[in-house]
């Protein structure tokens, strides 16, 4: 990225955030709340104390991973929205391995994490192969696969891996397969290191290897890619696989790396929606692995801080959600326009 375009990106985001905040304050004034108090509560809620900062990061962990899934897809010229379903299966695999195999501490964590990543990777392969061999559009196939994953996971939790003592959830993960809590009192665990490390790894693959370069060429200019002899099946498969692993880690992180429940709700409540939130994260992070980390922290801050907006500033819960939504939309607009423009041109 050239410096000037980066500066342009930053100023665009800056402008977008101001517009978002202004629309939000406008809404609050209409409903008779003081926007300054509310935004102050939002900020202090997200970064006011050490616990709040850690909580912000805890909310950011799954989002940076699901955001990465979408970001890598866009970099390869794909619109991969299968993160949601891949994440369900990743979470399920983690709870099954972590809840049934009693391994020594370190090994248990590693096995459950790898199981999550692996099953999610397998799940992402089918749409990838359909795309490569039959040209099935990934938007269609991944949406369908999300629903298949939803019902499959619900079925498996309710009928095969349910907790016999409480019907609403799956078996619990054994203590040996849980990530360590970083700081008593917050829900942030060591899983954040795995998440960040994976984002950095993907950055190095995309910007430091030949196949990563090919992937980006294919995404930004398919004609040039074809002219240079880039094999589309290779880049498509790679993008899906990297994304699948990220989503699997995201799912696993919420089960074996997020207290206090350590199990999977039959409603899939602990992960539901994170995959789609990832779209927003990727757009705000300009589809860049490192940008995605920053964007996910921003997202996490909105989630964590918004409860203070509700609590301290007394803003209605529904209005709080509307305002955070507006800020997110405003921020994703610039990148969404670029992505859509490229997509339409194709």
């Amino acid at each position: 990225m050239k410096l000037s375009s980066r500066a342009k990106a930053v100023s665009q985001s800056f402008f977008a955030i101001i517009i978002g905040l202004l629309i939000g304050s406008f809404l609050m004034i209409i409903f008779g709340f003081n926007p300054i108090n509310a935004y102050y509560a939002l900020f202090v809620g997200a970064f006011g104390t050490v616990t709040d900062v850690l909580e912000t990061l805890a909310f950011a962990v799954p989002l940076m991973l699901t955001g990465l899934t979408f970001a890598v897809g866009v970099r390869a010229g794909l619109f991969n929205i299968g993160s949601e379903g891949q994440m369900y299966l990743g979470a399920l695999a983690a709870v099954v391995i972590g809840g049934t195999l009693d391994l020594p501490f370190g090994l248990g964590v590693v096995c459950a994490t790898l199981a999550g990543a692996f099953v999610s990777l397998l799940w992402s392969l089918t749409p990838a192969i359909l795309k490569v061999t039959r040209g099935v559009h990934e938007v269609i196939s991944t949406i369908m696969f999300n629903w298949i994953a939803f019902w499959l996971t619900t079925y498996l939790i309710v009928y095969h891996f349910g907790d016999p003592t409480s019907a609403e959830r799956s078996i619990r993960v054994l203590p040996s397969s849980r990530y360590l809590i970083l700081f008593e009192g917050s829900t942030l665990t060591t899983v954040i290191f795995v998440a960040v490390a994976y984002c950095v790894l993907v950055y190095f693959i995309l910007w430091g290897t030949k196949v990563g370069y090919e992937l980006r060429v294919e995404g930004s200019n398919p004609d040039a890619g074809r002219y240079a002899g880039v094999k589309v099946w290779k880049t498509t498969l790679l993008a899906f696989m990297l994304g699948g692993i990220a989503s699997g880690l995201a799912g696993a992180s919420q089960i074996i790396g997020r207290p206090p429940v350590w199990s999977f709700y039959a409603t899939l409540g602990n992960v539901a929606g994170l995959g789609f939130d990832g779209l927003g994260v990727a757009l705000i992070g300009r589809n860049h692995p490192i940008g995605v980390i920053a964007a996910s922290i921003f997202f996490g801050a909105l989630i964590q801080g918004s409860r203070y907006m509700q609590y301290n500033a007394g803003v209605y819960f529904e209005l709080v959600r509307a305002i955070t939504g507006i800020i997110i939309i405003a921020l994703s607009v610039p990148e969404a326009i670029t992505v859509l423009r490229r997509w339409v041109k194709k």
Partner: protein
Amino acid sequence: MTPKYRRAALKTSVLIIIVIIIIAGLVGGYYVMTSTTPTTITTTQTTTQSTTTITTATTTTTSVSTTTSASTTTATTTTTTTFTSTVRPIKIAVVSDIGGRGDLSFNDMAFKGGAEAEKDFGVEMVEIISEKESDYVPNLRTAASDPDVKLIVGVGYLLSDALAEVAPKFPDKFFAGIDTYAQSIIISKTNTYAPNLLDIAYEEHKGSALVGALAALTAIHYGKPYIGVVLGIEIPVLWKFEIGYKWGADWAIKWYQKKFGTTTVPGIGITPIKERVLWTYTGTFSDITKGYEAAKAMYAKDAVAVYNVAGPLGLGINQAIQEISKQKGLTTGPPFWIGVDADQDWINPGFILSSMMKRVDKGVYFSAKWVVENKFRDIVKGSNGSIVLGIGTKVAGETFEGISVSTLSDLDAFIQMGLDAEKLTGKKVLPMPPDEIKTVAKAMREAQPSWVWEGMDALQSEIRNGQVTVPLALTKDVVDYWRGQLG
């Protein structure tokens, strides 16, 4: 040429906006900071005066000063409010589960209990609505971190883990959980209960026995052979409802024999004892169609009333009734259905006999009361951290009840809840105007012979006096035994 100008224009506008934002931020931030410490009225007045001076002095100049004065005015309002609230009432925080406000049941009832506590004890209620499961811990912690909050109530069993996690970290705050089992989680970890946490459970089996008796007596009156119950997923919690209901129906038939000195009981009495109650586990708490199908089959067999033990599936039962009433042109039952958890009598007045009410509001109300009266810790100590509210239940030697069958006077509060939900969602919730609901419900109740209600009241007082014990089915063995007795 044009792009050059455009870029310059963009740059300048961005610069201007940055300057405005920084100034507004600094001023706003300054006033918010100062307003957190209570100030006297004199300062407020001076601020107001100076604001006016600034505004008048600079009306003709830049937009920056307008921003300044605007934020000053807002900050002034904040200062005043902080001042007036220096006499701080005890705050109680109610953390909902993901259902949130407007569910007309669990969460709304909890908020109702909090509102009543506000009225009676002068406490102040703060509501926090959880958006997803991962919000439970941070929401509880946010509430507990507020120095003014004394009591934090978690609503619903899904908050058990979160309460067990947060309560021990705030030993000087009180926590209560509705339907939760947080203490058992803490005990399994530390071998002792948390001294500041109270799990509140309810005696649903007793309430189910009461409506079972009501349904059976109605069946006798109309000479109908069956009563029914539609249940959700077959989990231990629901066994309490099933066996309680069957037991209550059986009790009622015996009561009728004693009361009228006869062995021949019409209607349901002729049906063999094991076939009197039609019961179906639908295997779902969300698929309303399943509730409709199950209820329809029961009404087709001429069941007089169907008890809803599957939350939203009650709407399916209601659908089945509406179909029948339309076909036959009925304005009031039979057939009837029976509501659960909240007072559901208003959903389709005339066709709902009554509701088995689980008073979530009482749980919140009592916990607030105990905090205000400084008894909370003793009550936790005396009960090892979990109490049961029901019929004739005692907490620390005093009677505190949490289960009842809805009466006409309960209807007002729940119609109000429906009105609030209409305001909140903008959708029509109530089937007819409030007054009409009350008239129809009253007429329906008066249409039943007085001994029907008398019988149910007799069971209630026998339970309260300890003359009879409603079986509490929590294990497979107990359930199998009672199914063997009563079908």
